[in-house]
């Protein structure tokens, strides 16, 4: 435990995040004082609520990362659980899905994280796409309710894929054995999370500052080309500048961060489309200013598996 504390580069990353939090808290305070009662006030209040929530999220993430592999796995398993819960609450299911849902929450999802924990890559990679894919429709069929059968099976499977399978690839980075990088895997996870979340934040900031042209106004009125391009470029620049914490060269790091940004955008877009389809704004109210857990991690869900496989393909012999 706390072995990660002896990794000075990891400590630098933590210090950087802390500095960013302090800076943004000051910036939020200044904005609040400059705009005591005008039209931009609700945006500023929401911004400050978001910053307060970021402090908490960063603290929880840092502590679990310092506890080590178990702490990180438990944290991501809990996030998966809460996200799956938000998703299943809002997606219409029927009485006949009850037992399948019980299995999804209490067997399939925990098993996925257990497999990461025991480093069983082969099983981890096929558990949900293959085994759950067969189990979910079969168990619904056994119950016998065929009304909207395909939709129900597909919705449960999609929820498991996004909330459990995709997200579990983030802590799975800890099990990759990269030559010359042994013991520093937490830095890789932190790198992914920082670039992905900063991409979200910077797209939001650029969008608020200069955003005009909507990308897919039907899906998400807040996503603009200016925000997307500005956010992607600045987050990629940030990721490139962090090359020294990774096993990548500067150029590789740029490619990796660019990929993370693009996929994060795709994740946000897809989850927004689902929200519009259901007719809601956010998946929940768990995080002040941000909405639900799933609203916060939607980009990570798409970025994590691709980043994992890119690293595994190119850097693990």
């Amino acid at each position, binding site marked *: 435990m706390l072995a990660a504390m002896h990794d000075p580069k990891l400590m630098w990353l933590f210090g950087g995040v802390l500095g960013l939090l302090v800076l943004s808290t000051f910036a939020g305070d200044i904005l609040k004082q400059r705009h005591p009662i005008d039209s931009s006030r609700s945006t500023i209040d929401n911004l400050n609520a978001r910053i307060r929530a970021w402090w908490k999220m960063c603290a929880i993430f840092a502590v679990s990362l310092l506890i080590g592999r178990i702490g990180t796995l438990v944290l991501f398993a809990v996030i998966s*659980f809460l996200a799956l*819960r*938000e998703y*299943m*609450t809002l997606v219409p*299911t029927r*009485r006949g899905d*009850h*037992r399948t*849902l*019980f299995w999804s*929450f209490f067997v399939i999802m925990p098993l996925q994280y257990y497999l990461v924990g025991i480093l069983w890559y082969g099983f981890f990679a096929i558990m949900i796409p293959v085994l759950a894919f067969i189990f979910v429709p079969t168990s619904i069929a056994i119950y016998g309710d065929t009304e909207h059968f395909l939709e129900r099976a597909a919705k449960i499977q999609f929820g498991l894929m996004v909330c459990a399978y995709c997200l579990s690839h983030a802590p799975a980075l800890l099990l990759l054995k990269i030559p010359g990088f042994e013991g520093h895997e937490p830095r890789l996870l932190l790198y992914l999370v920082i670039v992905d979340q900063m991409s979200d934040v910077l797209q939001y900031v650029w969008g608020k500052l200069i955003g005009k042209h909507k990308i897919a106004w039907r899906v998400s009125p807040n996503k603009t080309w200016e925000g997307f391009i500005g956010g992607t470029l600045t987050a990629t620049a940030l990721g490139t500048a962090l090359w020294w914490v990774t096993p990548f060269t500067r150029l590789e790091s740029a490619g990796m961060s660019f990929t993370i940004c693009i996929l994060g955008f795709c994740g946000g877009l897809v989850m927004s489309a689902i929200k519009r389809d259901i007719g809601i704004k956010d998946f*929940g*109210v768990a995080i002040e200013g941000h909405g639900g857990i799933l609203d916060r991690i939607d980009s990570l869900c798409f970025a994590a598996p691709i980043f994992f496989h890119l690293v595994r393909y190119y850097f693990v012999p």
Partner: protein
Amino acid sequence: MSRGIHPIGSLLAALARGITGVQVQWAGCEPSERQRIYFANHTSHLDFVVLWSALPSEIRASTRPIAAKDYWEETPVRRYLVENVFNAVLVERGAMAKAKSPDEAKFLGRSLIEDMAAALGKRNSLILFPEGTRGTGEKLGEFRGGLYFLAMRRPDVELVPAYLENMNRILPKGEFLPVPMLSLLTFGKPIQVQPGEEKDAFLERAREAVSSLRRIGPA
């Protein structure tokens, strides 16, 4: 009669809150120590515990559920729970239907109301599910008459409608294991029996007061 909350009660309340992640909204009134009858829709065994756990603990200690005698006296565990943990008021379901004569039915009905009024006493509140049985969650069932007669017997007690969302998906009738979906509990504006209001009209209004609190899906 006043006593603290049984430790098993606190444990079950915490468990129910954890499983359902219940979000509580006091939309039509504030939590209060005054005497109340909370009446809500009923779709799950967890309904009572969730509603009960949503009350602040000092109110919870003096709030008693109305429970069906036939079900809760069936096994020793259930009996222990209703008698020692939840301090429930047991009533016989369908007693009036079983009566041999209209007079007997009237008598049984009246004693039922007297039992509930006695359970209210000077400082207790009650939790009542006026549908009398668990529904599927799709449509609110007809309300039984007990709520009306009790309200007439104790006009000083506030009648607070409440709606429990999603409980039928968390632990539906006939299932043993819960699925941890999120639940929402909304307390509405208290209602009263209007002067000269007929039983059926009041019950329909009470039913409307509960179903109007529903946020998701058809009413």
